[in-house]
């Protein structure tokens, strides 16, 4: 699936929730699932500090595709991370660089991506794109 197709499937999934409680319960459920990152990567090196919640992000290359894993100490942040990873992980650097995040807007979670929320998500996305860019430069060389 392309990034767009994966984003579309997230939007479809959220379309069934007609009140905020169901939507957030689902996010919390996603957030509570198995760790999204190898415990050994949950350290200072991979930490993206937000004032409100902390996020750990790890990236590695596999056959020209980038595999992201991440975690957060706040469960709602983690739920949103799991959506981001589902949509972005496993794509090529060029696709990740070009990706937009309007799907979060469509499912009513855009506010969580506001820089003023300081929950680490904005920095995480920036970090994901930086990693993709670095990898692209390396392979172009």
């Amino acid at each position, binding site marked *: 699936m392309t990034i767009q197709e994966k984003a579309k499937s997230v939007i479809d999934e959220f379309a069934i929730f007609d009140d*905020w*409680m169901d939507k*957030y*319960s689902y996010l*919390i459920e996603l957030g509570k699932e198995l760790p999204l990152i190898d415990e050994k990567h949950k350290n200072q090196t991979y930490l993206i500090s937000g*004032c*409100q*919640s*902390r996020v750990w992000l790890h990236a590695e290359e596999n056959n020209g595709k980038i595999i992201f894993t991440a975690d957060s*100490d*706040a*469960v*709602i*942040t983690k739920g949103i991370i799991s959506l981001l990873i589902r949509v972005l992980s496993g794509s090529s650097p060029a696709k990740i660089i070009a990706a937009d995040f309007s799907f979060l807007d469509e499912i009513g979670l855009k506010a*969580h991506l506001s820089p003023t929320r*300081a*929950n680490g998500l904005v920095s995480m996305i920036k970090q994901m794109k930086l990693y993709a860019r670095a990898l692209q430069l390396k392979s172009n060389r």
Partner: protein
Amino acid sequence: MAFPVTQIRSDFPILSQKVNNKPLVYFDNAATTQKPLAVINRISDYYKTENSNVHRGNHYLSQIASDHFENARKYVAGFINATSEKEIIFTKGTTDSINLVASTIAEWVKPNDNIIITAMEHHSNLVPWQQLCIKQKANLKVVPIDYDGNLDMDAMKKMITPSTKLLAVTHISNVLGTINPIKEIVNIAHKHGVPVLVDGAQALAHISVDVNNLDCDFYTFSAHKAYGPMGMGVLYGKSVWLEQLPPYQYGGEMIKNVTFEKTTFNNIPYKYEAGTPDVAGALGLETALNYIKKIGINNIREYEDQLLAYATEKITEIDGVRIVGKAKDKTAVLSFVINGIHPYDLGTLLDQMGVAVRTGTHCAQPLMEYFGVSGTIRTSFGLYNTQQEVDVFIDALKKAVNMLS
């Protein structure tokens, strides 16, 4: 007489709006308070009928604006019982006021001198002193607090040395709600000839402030935390200090005579007010203080204490709640954590239910570290909050905890 909270609420237009389709419960008053219509109108009227630059023109409007601006200064002086309006400097806010003092006293501070602060300071009453100490190779000393959030007064006494240049302390903690014994602190410091700066950001709207009685050397506050406009604040300084300290910023208004070779500076307070001031802000502040005065600060204190006691009692009924800040003398702030639940998650769900609280470190990271938490949820009350809102908040909190458990 019962506290006229219904009448008061009708003075604040923002309170009647809905957030996420729920009636707004605004419990983030320590961050900023809402503004009564009187303040909004005063600012609007100024721009409609009085706007002009102050202290410059001899035309009608400039005269009116200057008179009103100076009357606002007199009003502020009276409100905090300063000896003279010359001791009232208009600034951008508490942070600006503190930076003004930290910059202008810089040359007093020599290597190995020290400045004393406390463990419960907001970053704005910590970082300016820390940076000053780094620049001057001086030491920053921190008065510890106990686990309830009371200052360790004995430790403070022992910290003061002949090399102590200033003691900076908050009147009320923005995280813990602790009301510090400023008068006693000033007494101790003055015995050693040490001046005291008080961060009054959280105090002005909640307790009576009398700088003459406190005898502090500097007192700072922001208008926006006392029902006034943002971007306006005050530095009160005893004239004996303000007259001997150097200017902070240079430019128009703060001068007497300028040649290309030299400048003689204006008298206080103008020496510290370079550039065109926020006239509308000063008038808005005056109106806000007048609003507080009409209701009576002691009535407000009593009412908010009741709200705090009620909220504290109700919240204790929830499993796993730990209140952060249990000082003997506290007001208007209730910080807490819930076992196993991240403050960000709770704040997000409370917002969905129309309840505005603050979550995170509250610009007091070292304090969070001391209490061993990554952040807290903070509810902070104002004169328009009600017991019924506390009930809505407690119900919402229970619902959120339920969803997250």
